[in-house]
């Protein structure tokens, strides 16, 4: 029985925290958030140099070959620093889509580049319905034409489509409304017929785009996995996204608690530090009481992906449902403890507040995941 992090994992955690404190302090988050692209090439490069982009890539393809628990530890640090950029979508989701779904040739083509940071990727799943849970809502189509597929349709909420190199795109390839009609393609962001419009988002640390595909030709060898075999990969990606976002939320919740406590130790009202009032203490203590058990839930969900695959889906939904709400509540309370200054653009806490809300709503809001917990638990 050992429910804890290994020495290597503690080192990973420590080095990530140190690096991000230095390279991605709130001033940098603010600069990126207020800028047009939503990411920093210098920061992305630095993270690639650390090997983080190759964390999940097998050593044979130039990566570190680590597991989901390691990734969760790293993403918690990203959440703590509110790192903007495509990392979660590229290094976790797109990379795992290829590791899990692609044949050897595609792996050989893309994984070394993803690992080194030479190439970044994202996933383009959602469409106008905004529903990720059901294959029947997919309208984008791909038709075979000689040595290529021709893709048409419109994707929404595609993270960082405007700056990555590769889009992993879900299209319908047969008349079936069911899961068997869905296929994944690797689409070059610069392909002709593809137009990408960034959307104005509330959480400026996460950028999403509208992606229009007008008869985009994709070479047939860029089909990921089997024809009609996309759905199980998508489901797997949604589970991983749930854990990844939960881990980010855990780190973010810890950070907003620290910000609130720090403020409560310096701000005076009625001639006393506000942190000496029980009204403030109890709010802060409630944050601790939510965050501490939640940490274990995130670790377990990530560990389940590495070691207990049969429990992974339920555990992922548990972590996502819990951390969605805990992070949002903690961010809320942190703003409350800051009072008026917390409501300003000038103070940093709103970046975390908004990220918490994005985390809550993306990849299935809490009610969706609770229903999954109920269904998988046989309620």
């Amino acid at each position, binding site marked *: *029985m050992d429910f804890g992090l290994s020495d290597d994992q503690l080192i990973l955690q420590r080095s990530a925290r140190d690096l991000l404190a230095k390279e991605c302090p709130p001033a940098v988050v603010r600069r990126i958030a207020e800028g047009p692209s939503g990411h920093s090439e210098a920061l992305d490069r630095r993270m690639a140099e650390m090997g983080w982009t190759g964390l999940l890539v097998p050593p044979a393809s130039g990566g570190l070959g680590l597991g989901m628990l390691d990734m969760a530890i790293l993403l918690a640090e990203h959440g703590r620093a509110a790192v903007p950029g495509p990392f979660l979508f590229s290094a976790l989701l797109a990379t795992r889509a290829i590791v899990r779904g692609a044949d050897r040739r595609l792996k050989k083509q893309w994984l070394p580049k993803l690992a080194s940071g030479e190439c970044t990727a994202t996933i383009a799943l959602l469409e106008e319905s905004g529903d990720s849970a059901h294959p029947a809502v997919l309208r984008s189509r791909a038709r075979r034409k000689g040595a290529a597929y021709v893709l048409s349709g419109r994707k929404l909420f595609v993270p960082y489509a405007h700056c990555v190199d590769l889009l992993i795109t879900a299209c319908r390839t047969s008349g079936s409304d069911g899961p068997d009609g869905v296929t994944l393609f690797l689409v070059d962001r610069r392909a002709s017929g593809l137009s990408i419009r960034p959307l104005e988002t509330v959480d400026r640390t996460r950028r999403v785009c509208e992606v229009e595909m007008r008869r985009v030709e994709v070479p047939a060898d860029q089909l990921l996995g089997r024809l009609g075999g996309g759905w199980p990969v998508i489901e797997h990606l949604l589970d991983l996204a749930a854990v990844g976002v939960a881990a980010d939320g855990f780190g973010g919740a810890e950070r907003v608690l620290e910000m609130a406590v720090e403020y409560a130790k310096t701000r005076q009202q009625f001639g006393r530090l506000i942190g000496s009032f029980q009204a403030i203490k109890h709010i802060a203590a409630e944050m601790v009481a939510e965050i501490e058990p939640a940490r274990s839930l995130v670790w377990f969900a990530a560990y389940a992906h590495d070691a*207990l695959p049969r429990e992974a889906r339920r555990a992922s939904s548990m972590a996502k449902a819990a951390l969605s709400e805990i992070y949002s509540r903690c961010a809320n309370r942190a703003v409350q403890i800051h009072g008026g200054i917390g409501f300003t653009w000038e103070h940093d806490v709103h970046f975390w507040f908004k990220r918490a809300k994005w985390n809550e709503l993306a990849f299935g809001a809490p009610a969706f995941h609770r229903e999954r917990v109920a269904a998988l638990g046989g309620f």
Partner: protein
Amino acid sequence: MDLSLTPQESEFQRQVRRWLRRNVSRRSPAEEPGEYGNPKRIAELKQWQRKLYEAGYVAMGWPREYGGQSEPGGNRRDLLMRQTIVNEEMVKARAPSLIGVMGVQMVGPTLMQYGTEEQKRRFLPKILAGEQIWCQGYSEPGSGSDLASLTTRAEIAGDFFIVNGQKVWTSNAQFADWMFCLVRTDPTAPKHKGISYILIDMKSPGITVRPLVQMTGDKGFNEVFFEDVRVPRANLVGELNQGWQVANATLSHERNLLGSTTRTQQMFQGLLRLARTRRRGGKPVSADPAMRQRLADLAIRVESMKYHSYRQLTDLLHGRSPGIAASVNKLVSTELNHAICALALEVLGDYGMLERRSRHVADRGVWPYEFMFTLGLIIGGGTSQIQKNIIAERGLGLPRG
């Protein structure tokens, strides 16, 4: 991270299961509401603790010379893991819990840290074997959350303390053999510095125990009055006027954390059974989307406390300080248990308000009973608000005041 048991631990787990299957009587369920009012049941429960002790399943981590199994060389980690297995299996088997739990978990560890050699030899083996039942003399009518304001006095007269005053909410005092008690020995000192920790024989002349009826209808706890009670000075634990530190050590002692979360898991399983079998609108309650949301919410909280306890056990095995973990546990677990019971009552609907002796009562009336009982645990042992103060002040370093 590795959640598996070693082959030796798995083998031990099988042994414990076999032993419990043979020894837990089907007719004697774990917690019978109101059982502490019944002398016959108390005798049975003492007998049960003795049996567990003889099987080697009680306080395994204590030193061998005082009745435990720990050797000076250090098999402590192994024993801690085994004790955890025993505790989990006991809950799963619905075995009665230890009647002498106050002795085993509170006064025993305190004596090992602060007791004299004579006190250790005199009390520890009997505590383990269930021969001596202990109660805790802390709260007073005027000293609840502000425990250090207590006023029960102990004046020194020769080789004795003469104790006068009153304790309240004293669980098990009606049948306990001994009390560990906080008394004021220096009324002139600041409140935390004039308190001593003494051991009182409950058969001493001058002690009156008066039962208090709880909202459950049980006589679970008591008022205890002291009138010129003579307590030998040899029963002082630690230094005179250092009782506050001694008492605090008790609270921070290794607790067996898994027991309580296993219990929470079981309560949740009970709720789930109820929701699957009770029907509303022609369908099981568990098919109702709103109910499923609330059940899932509890399931998630229960599960996170399970892993949280694994993490704390790991910290304990590595000798890392638990910090404020015990306060987080107390706060979260007690409120979670109460929330589980509250939802069970909602599932039961009208049946949820039937008294346990009533006709038509469901699950022997355990849900309304536990609904009330778990409310008491949110208050007892440091209220939720006191736990929040501890978390904020000791955990987060927010200023007192």
